């Protein structure tokens, strides 16, 4: 692809998470040409970063990696990663996207993913893909099952020492790469831009991110993952194997003071999942979940919750009011129990916050689809057409329109693909 080039296709999918990949695969299998643009260095979204998935406890990467590979190898799908969507307009049966290709400082066509550059680079930087619990390098393959397996250099951390360029066997490192714009013209678009979590720093009562051994649920996914930072669950302040772990639910959702009055839908279930996985990884540890109420609404979810209880996971009904640093790296959790015992403080070795869920992308100033009160993309016929947006020919799938688990995201992605397919056919293309 070159500067100023225009690419034409039947459908443009914005966001390469599980919803976007499913929509793209469904359309491509119907012989429509699809372009996926992804803002990250790899496709896969949150799901590729998870350890196992509720309610089956299947390995997340074992499900996501084949989908990523199928999309990457599909003859009708073209994927552009590390992209910035600048503008998306729709008009009479066609959409037009203006996209900026950000520089990786590595030629994607030449890179063979050997990681020689990464091993030779002298700069260690906190690895965001491992929750910051260990380091990666200033030039690196983003993570082991990333697609594409192409290195990227972070210019903010690079000393320009030249080692990576010298060692690269294919001459792929290019310090002079510049961003460039290209255009995509399609008949229809599916927005599958997903969600992000509120930050751990958002709530002073919960320590503002300054209390050691208070981690986010996504960080816990990394601690539980087989290729995680320690390859086991340890607490980050000193490497101790924790004996007591607590989950704090609604730590940023259903909370008007944070501007997020709505429920995150999947936090109860992922906390129960993580608690179960922890009890397998650390059989002697005490595991507690502080909750307001458990929302186990999907197929098999209530059974999952009951199994967790039977496994000995402690469910404490009560709102946590304060989280503070205690002695020897412990975390003090102060809460009001709803069983009448009143305000109590318990110390734990590790505390996991189930943070709030926000949209990962705002269409404001880029695309004229409407958003709802919660800022997620508005679905104009939620009961009979949950993938229809306020603009004809632009559909939405997955967590882009609101917090949604994987099963719902995938089925919605299929529905969006069918709507898009019907739309393309109706345009006579």
């Amino acid at each position, binding site marked *: 692809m070159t500067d100023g080039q225009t690419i034409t296709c039947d459908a443009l999918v914005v966001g390469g998470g599980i919803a976007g990949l499913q929509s793209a695969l469904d359309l491509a299998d119907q012989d429509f040409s699809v372009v996926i643009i992804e803002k990250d260095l790899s496709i896969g979204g949150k799901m590729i970063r998870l350890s196992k998935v509720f309610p089956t406890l299947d390995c997340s990467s074992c499900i996501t990696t084949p989908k990523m590979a199928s999309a990457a190898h599909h003859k009708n799908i073209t994927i552009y990663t590390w992209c910035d969507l600048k503008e998306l307009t729709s008009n009479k049966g066609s959409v037009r996207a203006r996209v900026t290709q950000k520089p990786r400082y590595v030629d994607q066509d030449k890179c063979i993913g050997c990681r020689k550059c990464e091993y030779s680079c002298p700069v260690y930087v906190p690895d965001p893909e*491992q929750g910051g619990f260990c380091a990666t390098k200033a030039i690196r393959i983003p993570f082991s099952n990333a697609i594409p397996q192409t290195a990227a250099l972070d210019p903010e*951390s*690079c000393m320009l020492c030249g080692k990576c360029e010298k060692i690269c066997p294919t001459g792929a490192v290019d310090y002079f790469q510049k961003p460039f714009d290209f255009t995509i013209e399609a008949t229809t678009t599916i927005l599958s831009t997903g969600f992000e979590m509120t930050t751990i720093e958002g709530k002073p009562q919960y320590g503002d991110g300054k209390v050691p051994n208070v981690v986010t649920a996504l960080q816990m996914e990394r601690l539980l993952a087989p290729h995680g*930072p320690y390859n086991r669950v340890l607490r980050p302040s000193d*490497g101790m194997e924790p004996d007591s772990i607590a989950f704090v639910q609604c730590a940023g959702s259903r909370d008007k003071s944070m501007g997020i009055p709505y429920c995150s839908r999947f936090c109860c279930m992922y906390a129960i999942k993580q608690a179960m996985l922890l009890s397998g990884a650390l059989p002697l540890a005490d595991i507690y979940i502080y909750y307001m109420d458990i929302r186990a609404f999907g197929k098999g979810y209530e059974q999952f919750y009951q199994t967790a209880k039977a496994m000995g996971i402690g469910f404490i009904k009560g709102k946590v009011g304060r989280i503070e640093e205690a002695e020897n790296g412990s975390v003090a959790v102060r809460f009001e129990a709803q069983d009448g015992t009143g305000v109590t403080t318990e110390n734990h070795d590790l505390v996991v916050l189930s943070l709030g869920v926000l949209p990962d992308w705002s269409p404001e100033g880029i695309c004229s689809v409407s958003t709802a009160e919660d800022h997620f993309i508005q679905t104009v016929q939620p009961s009979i057409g949950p993938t229809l947006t306020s603009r004809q020919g632009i559909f939405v799938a997955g967590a882009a329109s609101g917090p949604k688990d994987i099963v719902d995201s995938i089925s919605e992605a299929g529905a969006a693909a069918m709507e898009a397919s019907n739309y393309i056919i109706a345009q006579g293309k």
Partner: protein
Amino acid sequence: MSDKNKKKNKNKAEQERKEDMKRLREERKSSIQRAATMVKTQRKDLKVLMKQMGSESATAPELAQATGMDVAQVIWYLATLKQYGEVVEGAKNGSYFTYKLVVKEPEEAVA
């Protein structure tokens, strides 16, 4: 093209590249400075840590106590060195795992 001309062109390209790199270094002066300072600290820390590890296995708190480094920093380096195959996890000592340096043949060692 004669050999002389080829050589001349090559020299010119090399000279231009040198100039371009110089300009890029100037543009990225502040981030290069930041990265260089960070690398200096990391090299110092890693030297101290690896010297302390020697051929013995030790836990993160033991290494922190022996080196005077912050224990959170020690476990961060250990996890990193483990990712890059420089350190392996050993037996458990109480609630902590021990770590040991991987002894490498000289040509195996990474920069």
